[in-house]
């Protein structure tokens, strides 16, 4: 039982990290219908800049804020230079964002060097608690809390604010939103920057979790994020949360009980969901 609880906490923490990465991706896809393969690059930049800011300031909070701002600025540049010219063309989006993903990864090597860099966990989030034989690692609980908080905040914005209403309306009918006097391109830009900020947040939190950051981590985790977006339903925010938790838990259990299947389990999960619900667990309009 204790073992199961430990595996569950680990799975939830991993799931929340994947959710943070997938959340941005699904928002960007849901509203803008943009397949952004550069998302992993923004995640990696978040991880590296988090480590950088932590090294410079010694404050974990400032490092996370710095990483998110880095992601937001990169998001602004990416939308303006890379995404804007290819709105409405998925093939071009895949090609150009995949290319930009490689550029972002290589730029990390130019700026931070080619080797992986160690990432430290702040003292107050290091260590663990023991409750009834269950070891609860503080940092993992912290990630779960941040993931839930981000979910709640984004849901609040989507459901309770005017900008959230505009985003939800834009998912349904962009043209009509414009015909009501709303500059949808500006909304697109904000959503893209928010999505990039979420990717960078995931990267900044992932760094202490994995202990090291490396330039290729973006591509690695972007694949997981895409699996989550497909399972959850392209463009569905609650779907992404559920799918990320499923992927995290499945990975955690499989790694312990059937290690040989731990890498394949995400693909199997995706295949099973797609067989029975090709549209994913939720649909975009339930976002």
């Amino acid at each position, binding site marked *: 039982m204790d073992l199961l609880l430990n595996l569950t906490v680990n799975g939830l923490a991993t799931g929340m990290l994947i959710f943070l990465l997938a959340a941005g991706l699904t928002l960007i896809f849901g509203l803008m219908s943009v397949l952004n393969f550069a998302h992993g690059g923004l995640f990696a930049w978040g991880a590296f800049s988090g480590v950088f800011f932590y090294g410079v300031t010694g404050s974990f909070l400032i490092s996370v804020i710095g990483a998110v701002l880095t992601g937001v600025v990169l998001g602004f540049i990416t939308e303006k230079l890379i995404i804007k010219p290819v709105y409405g063309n998925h093939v071009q989006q895949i090609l150009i964002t995949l290319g930009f993903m490689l550029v972002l990864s290589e730029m990390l090597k130019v700026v931070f060097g080619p080797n992986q860099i160690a990432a430290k966990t702040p003292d107050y989030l290091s260590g663990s608690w023991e409750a009834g034989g269950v070891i609860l690692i503080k940092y993992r609980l912290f990630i779960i809390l941040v993931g839930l908080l981000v979910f709640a905040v984004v849901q609040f914005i989507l459901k309770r604010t*005017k900008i959230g*209403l*505009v985003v*939800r*309306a834009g998912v*349904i*009918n962009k*043209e*009509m*939103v*414009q*015909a*009501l*006097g*709303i*500059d*949808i391109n500006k909304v697109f830009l904000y959503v893209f920057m928010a999505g990039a900020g979420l990717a960078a947040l995931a990267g900044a939190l992932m760094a202490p979790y994995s202990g090291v950051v490396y330039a290729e981590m973006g591509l690695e985790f972007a694949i997981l994020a895409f699996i989550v977006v497909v399972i959850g339903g392209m463009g569905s925010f609650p779907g992404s949360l559920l799918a990320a938790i499923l992927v995290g838990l499945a990975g955690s259990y499989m790694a312990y009980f059937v290690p040989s299947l731990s890498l394949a389990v995400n693909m199997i999960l995706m295949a099973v969901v797609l067989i029975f619900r090709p549209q994913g667990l939720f649909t975009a*309009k*339930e976002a």
Partner: protein
Amino acid sequence: MSRLLTLENVHTHIGQYHILQGVSLTAEEGEVTVLLGRNGAGKTTTLRTIMGLSPATSGTIHYNGQDITKLPTFSIANGGIGYVPEDQAVFTTLTVEENLKVAMRKEDEAAMARQDYVLTLFPDLKKFWKKEGGHLSGGQKQMLAMARAFVNDNRLMLIDEPSKGLAPIVIESVMEAIREMKKQTTIILVEQNFSMAAGVGDTYTLIDDGETVQSGRMEELVRDEELKRTYLGIA
């Protein structure tokens, strides 16, 4: 009476198709101008071109003295033009309340008073205030689409086939709402049902094969059997 909107020799291409091939029309302030013509004549594209959704490739569109031909859709709408599309384009997973809230450019006292007035025109919307747009009947969706355009203080309303697919009793209440709106705003109306159009229209513009054929006062068209037979198929 002043001229609120003028289209001069407007051409519009959609992909490789040349849809509008010379549409000219005027809308006088305070009047209802009805666009008439057969299916596929270019009436809907004319409205979409005015809104900038299918931008004109040549010709000019002047609204309130300003050239809006090349303006983006949101700027055109913010200039005071409301649009009710043929398919209503209700936001299906948003409630009636949220549909109106998205549309409201301001949420001040005057806007709320206007919303209350709009709800007196369409009392059903009040009844289904918390219901999602996708769960409304066809008539209720049409009312919501019209309310959404009318909730702002627009000077011009473009309404595309409001009676399409609706039951006769619903059509009557939609037309009654248009007559009420007419007291406060200028309207360009696309309407296939000629008797409805004649009942509410002050002027008409007849479009055929993407081109303006004739414009004039509605009462003249009502008397012109030849024109109606040739272009509207009304015997």
